[in-house]
């Protein structure tokens, strides 16, 4: 375990002045994203600045510590009709307000339920804007439930691709997976609440790991490092246990988590961010056992970033959060940001994909596969002799292309 005490994030990103406080803004986009934000705001009194961006007010209204930005869509002004293009345009129309909210922020965290018109269109545009303003951009995105239908799935898949392009790190939560542990017969409303809490809890945990005084600190250089290792979105799950075997219990739970494709994602991860949270009773042996267990589950080449925090209130409990990067994409180029102005998509111009920023070709790997066959996600995979033929043939055949095409 690389037990390093890292310099605090704020010193890395700031102007160099130690007193330059680390500025963050959390932005809920669309009704789903705003609900998640609301759920968070209520439980995290010392949360950073929060902004709810929507095309139509949602109920319940966000608490007073959340600012609201209403997007105006089309001639009627209300709602996107589920069209992401409308959502994107509405965000562009609000570019001044958005810039103001993002000004001076070192980090922007976007919360978005992909599949509708607002979040799917506006979130990638806001991400691009935030980057233009120099912020590190982290997105938490949910993918629709299966029952929501093919159209929403397609919209969400396209939006996710856009988000991946504009964010430094994108964490996805497929709703369907979250709900694998919700009992049958759960009302839809409750299912969404579960998602809100799940996503909220993940962000809260991450926030604690990154911001609170910790024994072993993590910062978003770790996060960026993690995300740069793979072209796929990140997956995240947490577990908590108490009692004698608590270290084994949390590892066992995450090793088979539906959010990690029942463990498959962990076994193929190119990198793992391990967040361990305990009370004053947390022992070094436990920290070591947990990180060793995670290292054993991940492929041998995977990079581990370990962070440990303790909280006097968490006596007796052990929390484990894992953030996984998909399988490595070969010959990753620098995770450098594109030099181009990120305002481009706001003007509906070519998006900054950054030459070679997320290389996609190469050996077969699980997450790349999933992304590559996104188009066919609404129907059963075409399997012949155990091989998933939706995955591009040239990928399965290991054909190397001469070069990743450069933007003109």
């Amino acid at each position, binding site marked *: 375990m690389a037990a390093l005490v890292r310099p605090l994030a704020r010193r890395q990103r700031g102007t160099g002045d130690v007193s330059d406080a680390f500025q963050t803004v959390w932005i809920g986009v669309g009704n789903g994203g705003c609900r998640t934000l609301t759920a968070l705001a209520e439980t995290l009194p010392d949360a950073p600045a929060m902004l709810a961006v929507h095309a139509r007010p949602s109920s319940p209204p966000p608490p007073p510590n959340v600012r609201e930005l209403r997007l105006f869509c089309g001639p009627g002004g209300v709602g996107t009709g589920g069209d992401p293009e409308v959502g994107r345009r509405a965000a562009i129309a609000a570019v001044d307000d958005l810039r103001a909210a993002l000004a001076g922020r070192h980090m922007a965290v976007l919360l978005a339920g992909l599949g509708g018109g607002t979040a799917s269109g506006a979130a*990638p545009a806001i991400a691009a804007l935030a980057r233009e303003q120099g912020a590190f951009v982290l997105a938490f995105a949910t993918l629709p439930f299966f029952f929501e*239908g*093919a*159209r929403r799935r397609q919209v969400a898949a396209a939006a996710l691709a*856009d988000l991946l*392009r504009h964010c430094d790190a994108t964490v996805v939560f497929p709703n369907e997976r979250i709900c694998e542990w919700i009992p049958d017969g759960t009302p839809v409303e409750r299912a969404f609440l579960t998602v809100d809490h799940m996503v909220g809890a993940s962000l809260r945990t991450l926030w604690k790991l990154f911001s609170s005084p910790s024994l072993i600190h993590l910062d978003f250089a770790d996060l960026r490092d993690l995300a740069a290792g793979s072209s796929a979105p990140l997956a995240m799950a947490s577990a908590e246990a108490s009692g004698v075997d608590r270290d084994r219990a949390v590892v066992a739970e995450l090793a088979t988590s539906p959010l990690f494709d029942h463990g498959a994602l962990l076994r193929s991860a190119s990198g793992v961010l391990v967040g361990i949270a305990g009370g004053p009773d947390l022992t070094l042996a436990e920290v070591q056992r947990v990180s060793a267990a995670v290292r054993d589950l991940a492929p041998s080449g995977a990079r581990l970033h370990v962070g440990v925090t303790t909280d006097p209130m968490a006596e007796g409990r052990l929390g484990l959060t894992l953030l996984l990067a998909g399988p490595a994409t070969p010959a990753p180029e620098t995770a450098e940001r594109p030099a181009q102005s990120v305002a481009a*998509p706001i003007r*509906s*111009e*070519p*998006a*900054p*994909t950054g030459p070679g920023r997320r290389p*996609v*070709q190469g050996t077969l790997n699980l997450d790349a596969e999933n*992304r*590559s*066959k996104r*188009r*066919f996600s*609404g*129907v*059963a995979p*075409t399997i*012949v002799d155990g091989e998933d*033929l*939706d995955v*591009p*043939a*040239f*990928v399965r*055949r290991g*054909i190397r*292309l*001469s*070069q*990743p*095409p*450069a*933007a*003109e």
Partner: protein
Amino acid sequence: MADFHIAALDIGTARARAVIADQLDDGSLIARGIADVASDGLEKSLIVDFPVACDVVRNAIAAAEDDAQLKISDVYLVLSHPDVRPAVQTGTVHITNPSGEVTEADIDAAAEAARQARLPPDRTVIHSIAQDFSVDGHEGILDPRGMSGNVLRHRMLILHGDTTALDNRVRCAASAQVNVLDSAFGGLCAALAALSPAQKAAGAVVIDLGAGSTSFVVYANRSLVHAGSLGIGGNHLTNDLAWGLRLSFRQAEQLKLEYGSALPRARDEHRSVSLEADGAFPARMVRLSDAHAILHARMDELLRWVRSQVDAVGALHRIGGGLVLTGGGARLDSADKLAGRLFNAPCVVGRPAGIAGLSGEAAGPAFASVCGMLRYAAMQQPGPPRRRGWRRWFDRLLGANGEPVT
């Protein structure tokens, strides 16, 4: 002028097509209304968004009606399906005639027994096609009438597909206020339109390369001996390009249509082409050698799958009539060349034959299935179709028991 008209509908993943044809007294067909509209709501030849697909059907029928200047109340429906599978079943009967001679009734009884498909409930029989007979163990008999013996066995090729998907397709067509008179497997329809009698007699393979799925049928010994489909099609070619070259689906489709090739081209080895920006996807220069490598990998794999299917029934060396490619995917440059090499047989791009008045797109390979459907319908009888019992009669036509369909 025309006494009678028939209409056929093909709801594809990329395009929906409808053709209304006049049928003259002599049975010949003249296209009178043609529609070729963009499709939506399907993926891999399966309806994934029912209301949207119903809109598409309405558009297609309305467009054909406008073109033909008449309203239709009935259609014949092409069944495209990504998972058509064959099963050979045998019906056995004891020859009852005291003289020991095989009669028409014995043949019918054996056929009926063979047709009692032992399929799981989620599978529906699309066609049952007569193969051959055996009398007291003597195999390979094409017409046993008048032969004598004790036991008659009749082999039939059953083509089956997913019950729900096929039901949905029929319901979707019917949602446009038309009766679906009958339906037939898209691969078979393509063969009916694009295969010459001589090819059929010599043995041939027809491969319909759609956007969502690929269907094939194999003729050997003058009868249809094998058929099937797979949920891989032109959209996979496009998706592979989009993924590999980081293009939008639209950019990739444009690249495929304008510059695609199933084989690498020497003259393009160092050539790059530019693609315009599409939304969030920037304009790009793309190397054709990369695009062709991607397309070749997919087409090669797909055609090899068909070849393995043909080989599985031992027909690979019995296709003297060669290969015919239909569907929009047949227009990919060098697809025929690649297929010809893989099967070591002559390969052509098939066009619908036997229907007058087709031109432009409608005379191309993508119209084979909908035109074949018309011929299927017309073959039932010149003039108004006889509804009862014709399917069996027709299947016998297709099979060894009757004249090969022309």
